[in-house]
């Protein structure tokens, strides 16, 4: 990954009348980076994506995509390097999958030979010549993803790519995202499926009421917000007492019926705590570790009303 940002937003705002859909956003996404944009419905995610795509113009601020402003006349030429999957797209049902991909690949002047491998990649080879009207929702979404991959884009922007998909289709989508990222493309993904994103992304940007309330890698955000890892240990009663006696500062709760003791610690102290527990010499029956999920991080950052007070931008 080099350090020149592929997407750069400096103090970007978009106003509709008096309402700010997006406000004072500073964001830089590097080449080969995968950034997830998360936020409640109406938080401004789609507006931000439209700004990045040059579909709408910012009221304030500077925007640079691959070193160019989307408002610049030459930007149209750069569009062939951008792949986009909208949140909802209904392709014409009387066309076949192949006709759809051929149409979009011609608009990008992409090589015709690219189409077949794309069908293979999204697992639609058998349905390539069927009409879209016969496609299931998952198939349509995968076709949309194939469309976004035409011309081997340098920037891939996906708006809710897995919404409404079954687990198998989700896996296909995620493995493609991994491939694209590994090939050096910048991936910008907006999603609600936080749990699934957790270990697939480099950084997360959390939006609330049009503002960026957190930006950084997930671990750093976890640390920053003080969410704890929970270590749940099943031991006999005597060992449970011993455990609690040894780690009073970490004690979280005890379940007598299940014979479990829960200890809470900072994410980064987890390994040390585990080592100390093992050194106690007690007989462990079972051990479970729960790290705070991206979902918890997200909830923590967005549950406060005063967004400006909570603004915590990390550079991880």
């Amino acid at each position, binding site marked *: 990954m080099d350090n020149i940002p592929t997407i750069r937003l400096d103090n970007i705002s978009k106003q509709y009348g008096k309402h700010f859909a997006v406000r004072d956003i500073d964001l830089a996404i590097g080449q080969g980076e995968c950034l997830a944009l998360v936020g409640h419905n109406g938080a401004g995610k789609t507006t931000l994506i*439209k700004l990045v*795509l040059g*579909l*709408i113009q910012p009221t304030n601020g500077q925007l640079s995509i691959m070193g160019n402003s989307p408002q610049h006349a030459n930007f*149209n*030429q*750069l*569009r*062939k390097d*951008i792949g*986009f999957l*909208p*949140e*909802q*797209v*209904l*392709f*014409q049902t*009387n*066309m076949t999958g192949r*006709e759809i991909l051929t*149409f*979009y690949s*011609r*608009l*990008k*002047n992409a090589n015709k030979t690219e189409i077949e491998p794309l069908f293979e990649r999204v697992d639609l080879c058998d349905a390539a010549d069927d009409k879209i009207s016969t496609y299931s929702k998952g198939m349509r979404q995968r076709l949309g993803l194939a*469309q976004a991959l035409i011309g081997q884009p340098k920037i891939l922007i996906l708006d809710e790519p897995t919404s409404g998909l079954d687990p198998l289709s989700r896996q296909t989508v995620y493995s493609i995202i991994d491939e694209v990222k590994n090939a050096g493309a910048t991936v910008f993904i907006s999603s609600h499926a936080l749990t699934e994103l957790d270990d697939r992304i480099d950084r997360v940007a959390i939006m609330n009421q049009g503002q960026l309330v957190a930006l950084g890698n997930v671990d750093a955000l976890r640390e920053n917000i003080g969410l704890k890892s929970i270590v749940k240990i099943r031991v006999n009663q005597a060992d449970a007492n011993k455990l609690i006696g040894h780690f009073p500062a970490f004690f979280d709760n005890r379940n007598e019926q299940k014979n479990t003791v829960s200890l809470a610690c900072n994410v980064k102290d987890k390994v040390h705590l585990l080592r100390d527990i093992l050194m106690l010499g007690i007989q462990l029956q079972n051990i479970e570790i729960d790290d705070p999920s991206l979902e918890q991080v997200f909830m923590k950052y967005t549950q406060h009303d005063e967004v400006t007070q909570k603004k915590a931008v990390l550079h991880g």
Partner: protein
Amino acid sequence: MDKVWTLILKESRDGLRNRWVVMITLVMALLALTLSFLGSAPLGTTSVSPLAVTVVSLSSLSIFFIPLIALLLAYDSIVGEAERGTLTLLLVYPISRNQIIIGKFIAHLFLLSIAIFLGYGAAGLAIAFSAENGFLAHDWQSFIRLILSSIVLGAVFLSVGYVISAAVKDRSTAAAIAIGIWLVFVLLYDMGLLAILAADSEQIMSGELVKWLMLINPTDSYRMYNLTSSNETALLSGMAGLSAEHTVSNLMLGLIMALWVVIPLGLAGFILKRRQI
């Protein structure tokens, strides 16, 4: 240009596959044939050519029918794509908003031209073969003028349709406005003009002003162009009495119609550029 061509191919195939063209062609041919044979029946063996009668009847039919078809083809083209989400997608591709309008326009005009050419052409041929005395060259000339000017009339209302489609937020509003526009141009405008004339008993409005007010409406320009295309059509349509000073050159009529194509088309491109996606 190859991007516009890609869009033209896609839109044309879409229109052909929707059976739009087949349907319109059949309806047009049916109406044209009915009008032609019914219209020429009372003439018997008079000197008036049946094709001239057909031109007069068909141009009256076209004034109602072609604007309606063109508006139906165009009203949905931008706003429909916006609702389906494909407009956003299209705009992310390296194609400009003007190219989108032009591509759609050429494709729709192509579809409309096929329908007009086949529909009216079928009627013309049927009459030609059934006529007793055969046709004179100027009959054909009037007929070809009818077909070409009908295509231009279609182009006018396609352009107007794109303005509506680029400007509104949902399809049902676009459909309602399209029907409203159709009513105004085809019916209400002339009725309004007549009402003004009737009220203007002191003749404040000069004949010249009324003439130009009428010809500003592209459907009236179209009517004038076809009804005065030959002596026979002028005679049949009652235009023969028009004094020389009140006739308008074909060039001027053509210019009015051409402006009605170009200006709304440019306006549609302008509106689409400013449209919030």
